[in-house]
């Protein structure tokens, strides 16, 4: 079993670890890392990229194969540790802090080089060792285990085939932010996918019609879902429910994450639960809802993330 020794903290550690991550991405994509690809991906000069490659080779972390480089066994272990640092820290930011989503990647990119394995393991333990990060990517375990699963992008997805978002790339940041604004998150259900002439993609996202710009579609990677798992017509959100109305919970939107999701599940907001809007606060938000016999106040922003079916729609979907 090849172990690796981590670089001492400092600028060189950051450079080498970033280069390792690039080599790892290349390995995952089934190609080798080259001087050009490295310089391009890291936004560094060819000289710096060459230094990085040389140092990594000297440490036995990279093996040259013609023009390209591949990770050695030790290099792969090292890269997985850095990837784990990044993904655990992102998950931590999402679940345990109130850091805005757009800052996750930047902070994790910085912290992945600072964090030591012990600290990351302690964080993971506090969160019951999550398997997936906020982007839907699997997190390497502390033993270095991670399943491979290359996912096709929305841009390359066949029209009409139902899917669920498996992963959203977080760079470039402006586009990632746009995807978030469109309500797209890992786990989000997409139906009636149709590619338009200009490269953008029309789709039904959790019951809403959306047109997704071509650039964003390229960032979104999908997982196919079982046929017959049809989304009922007339899906609404709890925030649409007026005082005195009753509906049935269809589920929590995938954008409802972290402690918020856990708390709602604990309160019994699960598919099939009857929910009634009881009264509103003077400002219109929060509103109080009767959920499984208890009255709970929820803010509008939370109610928007709970998918519901109205009574008429309930009966029609039951017939179907």
């Amino acid at each position: 079993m090849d172990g690796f020794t981590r670089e001492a903290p400092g600028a060189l550690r950051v450079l080498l670890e970033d280069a390792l991550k690039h080599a790892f991405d290349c390995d995952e994509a089934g190609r080798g890392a080259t001087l050009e690809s490295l310089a391009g991906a890291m936004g560094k000069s060819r000289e710096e990229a060459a230094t990085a490659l040389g140092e990594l080779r000297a440490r036995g972390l990279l093996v040259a194969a013609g023009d390209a480089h591949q990770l050695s066994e030790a290099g792969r272990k090292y890269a997985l540790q850095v990837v784990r640092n990044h993904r655990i820290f992102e998950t931590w930011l999402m679940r345990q802090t109130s850091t805005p989503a757009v800052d996750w990647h930047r902070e994790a990119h910085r912290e992945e080089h600072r964090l030591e394995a012990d600290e990351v393991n302690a964080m993971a333990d506090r969160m019951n060792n999550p398997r997936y990060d906020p982007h839907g990517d699997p997190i390497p375990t502390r033993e270095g285990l991670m399943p491979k699963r290359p996912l096709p992008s929305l841009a390359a997805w066949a029209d009409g085939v139902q899917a669920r978002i498996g992963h959203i790339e977080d760079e470039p940041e402006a586009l990632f932010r746009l995807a978030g604004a469109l309500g797209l998150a890992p786990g989000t259900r997409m139906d009636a996918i149709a590619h338009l002439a200009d490269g953008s993609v029309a789709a039904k996202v959790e019951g809403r019609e959306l047109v997704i710009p071509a650039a964003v579609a390229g960032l979104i990677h999908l997982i196919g879902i079982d046929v017959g798992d049809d989304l009922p017509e007339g899906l609404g959100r709890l925030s649409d429910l007026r005082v005195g109305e009753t509906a049935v919970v269809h589920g929590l939107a995938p954008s409802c994450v972290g402690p918020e999701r856990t708390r709602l599940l604990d309160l019994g907001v699960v598919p099939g639960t009857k929910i009634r809007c009881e009264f509103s606060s003077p400002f219109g938000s929060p509103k109080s809802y009767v959920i499984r016999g208890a009255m709970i106040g929820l803010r509008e922003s939370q109610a928007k993330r709970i998918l519901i079916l109205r009574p008429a729609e309930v009966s029609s979907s039951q017939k179907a």
Partner: protein
Amino acid sequence: MKSKDDVLKEAGELRWQLPQDLHDRIAESIHGEAARIAERSVTRSGGDRRLAWQQALDRLLTHPLTAFPIMIAVLGAILWLTIVGANVPSAMLGSLLVDKGHGWLSELFVSVGAPWWLKGLLVDGMYLATAWVISVMLPPMAIFFPCFTLLEDFGYLPRVAFNLDRMFQRVGAHGKQALTMAMGLGCNAAGVVATRIIDSPRERLIAILTNNFSLCNGRWPTQILMAGVFIGTLAPRGWGGSIAALSVLAVALLGFGFAMLSSWMLARTVLRGEASTFSLELPPYRPPDFWKTLYTSVIDRTLIVLWRAVVFALPAGAAIWLSANVFIGDQSIAAWFVHGTDPFARLIGLTGVILLAYIVAIPANEIVVPTILMLTVLVTGAAGGQGAGVMFETDPGNVRAILEADGWTSLTAMCLMLFSLCHNPCSTTLYTIYKETRSWKWTAVSALMPLVVGFVLCGLVAAAWKAFV
């Protein structure tokens, strides 16, 4: 034979084969089973509606037109009850502990031939400070906390948080902060402990740091005395009482404004982040058991807070006495400090005596007024006291005469009211903040933030006063 590691390895591998939303599915499964069991055992007569009176009350207490007037009326009633109701028992305790108790103890010490400094330190310093704190603090707390607890047990307070949540969300804080602030009106230390009901660490810290802007019990006497003695006399004949009361209410509302403003600033700067989740359970109204509530809230809240105040009042009493009786050169320590800081203090509308009083009163805000009076007598030599470093009580006319002898005006009174709102929390509260945050840094912030606000505010008011009056 398998080993422990084999078990863990297998479990670790199996994890990846389970659905990504495993936690959701487990929760759903258990809730489903719970519903099935409940259905088999529970029979319902008369539909699943809530009780009519509960529903009507909820509509009333959360209606846009009635919610806020009711909230203010309830709060006003509790404060009025606290202030008015505490007068008589406070006076009784004062005469028992301060007048009679002090006399007995003095005689006892004299009769056993104790040296003057021992009697001074123990009886005139420590005992008297503690006696004062008990007689001033105990009655209002024994009224305020049970009232508060009754509302809590009845189920009204969660509705208050529900009504105010939107405002707190706007400034980046949590709706439950409303409850901790209301609690702070009784005692800031209790308010800080109450922030435990806020889950998000960021929002909880905001609630802790801003709790001091809730005018606590210990500061109401200062407000009421200053408003009555100085502000009320500015009003036309017959309006004095109302103006005085309104000026105290204005200071309390100003505190609410500062709390919101500082929450907003903290949430935009050092405590940046997104508003956390809010799932507030609104329990059914439950008629509280009056006597049990009275008993438990006196035991649970009042006595604990009082005990802590007493623990801090003992050394404070000693400090007051020593500062007035230890001489450096020809002046006592107190006189040195007062004369040294007076020019700066006058600049921001206060006096050197007030600054010293606030240092001495770090253990308990209740002793601010007696300390000011005692030190003023000491420095100006005005008549009416019992001697250097001895706290005493006196009537409003006398108070005004003593203070005016030290050059007090309405401006001084106004600035003292503002400074009483905006200064560092008492040591009990600071200690509680440290215990809750486990951070010296945040404890320091909670002390310095209001102090800076207080100095700036008083400075501005003094400058405006001098420019226009």
